[in-house]
């Protein structure tokens, strides 16, 4: 057991970080919406799924056939990321307008919004399985539930190779991109006017209104930003795994939500930390106990952390962030 852990330590670390980086980007969507609305947007997993489908459709439409490496890979990744950001962002904002805003305007309880979120999630999954995926990729209708593969477009090569510590280009890109997006978002919330509006709404919606903040606009922006981050995650996911399906968001969404809670829900930096920690725990746990224990180990650690730090590792939330 311990021997397994030791001889797989470096590969597990690299894979854990690259897995965790995707969790972290998706976790941002959960954490931002929660910070502002106190709502767990369970349909966020489908926001991610829509992004992967849009990115995959772009790849097949462009007819990318050769394997790309280096600058070409980064360029193509940026391009599909832009498409995925738009698709995911529009989906997230659409969800807010259709599934949440009407409930809020009529004074629906938070529980009603939660049910609405679950409904929207199932609706999107089945819509994609039955219509969108078969339609976009020219599959027979029963093919909508099968995984759809991208053409092999990523040329994988080792960027760093020191003994056991081998970092492949795609894994490195995932982590770097996630950290860059994270820092950019953090600065955005800290420094811009819109960011101040988001923080103000998170602290106290009533007072924010009195101070002239347009709350509806802030909420729309929050969903759009969360969706955009899921779009980035979707593009990275497609680079790593080169396939998607209608159900791809489900497990990943649960894990991202877990990462958000682990890091401290409502806290942007917590989402990054939670994602990376969760990814590492899963990979270390798999190395020690076997891959079938991956989820068990992850959730045991979550429970332990919450027992001692009920607000997550960082705890401090978006509302308490220094102005």
């Amino acid at each position, binding site marked *: 057991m311990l021997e397994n852990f030791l001889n*797989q330590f470096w*590969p597990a670390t690299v*894979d854990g970080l690259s897995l965790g980086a995707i969790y972290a980007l998706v976790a941002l969507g959960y954490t931002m919406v929660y910070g502002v609305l106190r709502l767990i947007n369970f349909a966020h997993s489908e926001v991610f799924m829509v992004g992967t489908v849009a990115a995959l459709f772009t790849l097949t439409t462009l007819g990318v056939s050769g394997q790309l490496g280096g600058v070409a890979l980064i360029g193509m990744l940026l391009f599909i990321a832009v498409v995925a950001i738009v698709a995911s962002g529009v989906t997230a904002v659409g969800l807010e307008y259709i599934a949440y805003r009407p409930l809020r305007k009529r004074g629906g309880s938070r529980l009603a919004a939660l049910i609405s979120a679950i409904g929207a999630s199932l609706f999107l999954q089945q819509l994609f399985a039955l219509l969108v995926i078969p339609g976009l990729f020219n599959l027979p209708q029963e093919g909508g539930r099968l995984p759809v593969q991208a053409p092999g477009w990523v040329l994988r090569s080792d960027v760093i190779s020191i003994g056991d510590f081998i970092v492949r280009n795609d894994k490195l890109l995932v982590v770097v991109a996630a950290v860059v997006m994270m820092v950019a978002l953090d600065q955005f919330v800290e420094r811009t006017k819109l960011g101040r509006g988001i923080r103000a709404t998170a602290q106290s919606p009533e007072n924010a209104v009195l101070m002239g903040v347009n709350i509806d606009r802030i909420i729309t922006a929050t969903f759009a930003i969360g969706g955009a981050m899921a779009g980035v995650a979707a593009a990275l996911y497609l680079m790593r795994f080169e*396939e998607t399906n209608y159900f*791809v968001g489900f497990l990943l969404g649960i894990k991202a939500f877990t990462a958000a809670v682990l890091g401290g829900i409502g806290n942007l930096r917590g989402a990054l930390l939670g994602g990376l920690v969760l990814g590492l725990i899963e990979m270390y746990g*798999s190395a020690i106990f076997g*891959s079938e224990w991956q989820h068990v180990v992850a959730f045991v650690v979550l429970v332990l952390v919450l027992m001692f730090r009920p607000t997550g590792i960082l705890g401090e939330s978006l509302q308490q962030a220094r102005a």
Partner: protein
Amino acid sequence: MRHRTIVRLGAALAAASLALTACGGGEEQGGAAGGASPGAAGTVKIGLMGDLTGENSGIVIPLRNAAQLAFEEYNATNPATKIEMVEYDSQGVPEQATALAQQAINTDKIVGLIGPAFSGESRQVGPILEEGMIPSVTASATNPGLAENGWKYWHRIVGNDNSQGSAVAEYMTRALGTKKAFVIHDNQEYSKGVADVVNQTLGGSGVTIETDVIDPQGSDYASTVNKVKAAAPDAIFYGGYYAQAGRLLKQLRDGGVEATFLSGDGSLDDGLAKGAGGTNADGAIVSCPCLIDPTGKAGPASKKLADAYKAKFNSETAIYSGEGYDAATAFIEAVKAGKTDTASINEYLKTIDIPGVTKQIKFAENGEPATSDVYVYLFEGPSYSLLGNTKEAEKPAA
């Protein structure tokens, strides 16, 4: 899926006409048949259950097609009693399968069932069929435990996982010279069953084995890849279905693992090559207790089915189409012999002994087929071809 809609509609009509005629005490059957064939004793319904639209439907569609072909050929001879095939799309989910089985017995009044296609759903549906006294012939559920329930109405026309697992393990040691193996499965009933037998048989011949388990819903198999890399085996056996097998194989090859990849019948689909991407699946060897023979080299019956299948569906015969055809033939022979109720059909299946496409259609006391051989297939490009019987096939040229 126009066809299925029609069948469903037919089933609904039949149910409606039953309800109507029940009051008048008129004939009970004939509504769905459209009232053709005058003077006919009517129509009996044979169900077909399996994953027709789900993730692993690629394994079930060919057997559905072949069964449909068999029934259509039979109905075209204008027999006294026609057979209507009613489809039940369980998506391979046991909970859905049990609900559909109740519907099949109580509402649709089927007299026999082809399927369920997978072992997990078979285990759940078996007791329901037993209670409803519905004879079943599965063409693809290969879990050995199914034969040990003492079910009197259950049969299969395909060799079980024990026969497959031990045959492929022997092939690994004999033809491939495997000394160090890595056995992976996805913890589903079928997958674990076949992987366990491979494990035991390899262990019995002194092969060093390491194991791991993957999550079929997961997408990142990095931890498994790391374990395989650390173990550096000559061969990897994966017990599971093609969607995950393709994903796993891709990540293994991307991770630089070169070892020969083997798997069982659940992975025998072009989807494996598609999922693995590029040329990753080239050289993968997949075993199956089924005979897939689109060129008809195994014999004239095989050739005849391949041609008819191609003419009707514009595609080659694939996994379990021969077995699906044989399962349908078993019921057709029963109906031909004038058996149209569940009890007499079941009695007939005990005595049936006729040549089928894949093997002699003959069942042992416990419902298992009387004979079974295991074949290995080699992936090359987007598809696979027959390598031969595990007892004789050699290592493919690199």
